[in-house]
């Protein structure tokens, strides 16, 4: 069931901040999507393997060699904040 509580929960999990209008629109869209899925669930899929991967490719493994690293300068270039050595982020207060 998609309701306002669930929307708020998803908002929090996805770290989004939605306006009341956006929430309303999203509620409507998600209800529609869920209705579609419910419709599909009417189909008897007993014995049908779930389709997870679109093609039948297998993982192409990579040899264990060091390659394609970027410099620290390049790595930090897109960071909102850094001290030239580390990425700086708002203090993550996780303990206590």
């Amino acid at each position: 069931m998609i309701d306002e509580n669930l929307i708020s929960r998803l908002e929090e999990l996805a770290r989004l901040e939605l306006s009341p209008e956006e929430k309303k629109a999203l509620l409507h869209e998600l209800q529609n999507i869920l209705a579609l899925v419910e419709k599909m669930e009417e189909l008897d899929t007993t014995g049908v393997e779930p389709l997870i991967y679109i093609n039948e490719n297998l993982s192409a493994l990579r040899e264990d060699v060091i390659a394609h690293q970027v410099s620290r300068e390049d790595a930090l270039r897109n960071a909102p904040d850094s001290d030239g050595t580390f990425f700086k982020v708002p203090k993550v207060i996780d303990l206590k």
Partner: protein
Amino acid sequence: MSSNYETIIGLEIHVQLATHSKAFCGDDARFGGAPNTQVSAISLGHPGTLPRLNRRQVEFAARLGLALDCAINLVSTFDRKNYFYADLPKGYQITQDRQPICVGGHIKIDTAEGTKTICLHHIHMEEDAGKSMHDADPHHSLIDLNRAGVPLLEIVTEPDLRSADEVDALMSAMRQLVRYLDISDGNMEEGSMRCDCNVSVRKQGDTHLNNRCEIKNVNSMRFARRAIEYEVQRQIGIMEAGGTVKQQTLNFDPETGITTPLRSKEDAHDYRYFPEPDLPPVVITPQQLEQIRTELPPLPWALRARLRTQYALPEYDTQLLTEEKAVAQFFLALAQCTTQYKAAANLMINKILPWCQEQKVAIEQFPVAHAALASFIELIDTGQVSNSNAYQRIFPQLIEQPERTPLAIAQDLNLLQTADEDFLESIVDAVIAKNPDKVAAYRKGKKGLLGFFVGEVMRQSKGKAEPKTTNALLIKLLEKQ
């Protein structure tokens, strides 16, 4: 009060793999590099990048799984575990949730009550997160992404452990195993092995499991022990007061010695796992698996059994000599050169291993060849040199001059024992003459004094007196009135 309760513990052990590059990209996976220098577009989580799995991570996982008698899934799949944290650039960890590479399995541990089998739930492949530092800057957390994407295996046990001692024993056994398998250095201080402990308690005799608490990221055995002991008392306290333990994730603070809730909101624990669309299933062929199986090194428990049965060594020796694979290999090589297995074990335990430890030298670099060590053992065994002279004087020389034979060194130092009766008799006579009261006591029946006389002769001869002949000669002359 505590004795009315049973402690139930299951572990999630994270093992950092000793690959050159990361799990899904070519960044250097080594520990300890300058911050943010072992990164790439993939480990930084830039849009449009695609992961490619490291072949060696799969091999290492299969190696560990085979060693632990797991069933190996020839097809295994990856999933995304979604959560936001600053040291996880993609916003999800690539892990294996639905179909991990290894299922089941078990390992034996040594406990005070004897050997115990700990069952495993599964082992899966995943990637590590970066590192956050919270105390370097007052207003920011600092992030180093060198570790982001380093390959991990997570070993999940069944709730089969009953004490901190058993946790200790299991972690030691796992550490030893991953080192034998050359898949990790097992170094807890550097974070190559960490564990999350799931702890619950129940009244003795109960068969149901109560709510468990997960203590995160315990990175030393000492902390694990303290965290578990604290947590057990905390939970018993709640139950004694008539309460119910809440299922939660805890952090152990080594400074205060207490556990505190790590996540403020209970419901924040929603990882929304779903199949990783960027990584198709991983397949191992039966042939590849067979290849990995044939290349497995001898495992610690197999070597211990071999040292016990084939070389008749006592338990204590087998434990010490199998601690590290290289040490066991050294013993096996030495045992090819001599039949004095117990003497070889003693030599390793009392001299060679302590020397390597003092000099901080790997046993592979021990300077003296196995054959020379075998002739060293023979010198003692055949009575050519006394045990103490061999250990205290010849051995240090042998390390200095490993190209010389122990016999030549013994000759040089004038340490070869002699059974020459004329030589011995002159010393025995002197000893008897010097100790008239002890001789009288001996003759009155204090036969235990024989040891004193033997010791005196040994001392006078500087260890060169051959003990058997000396004994016989002493008895003969002492008994002669």
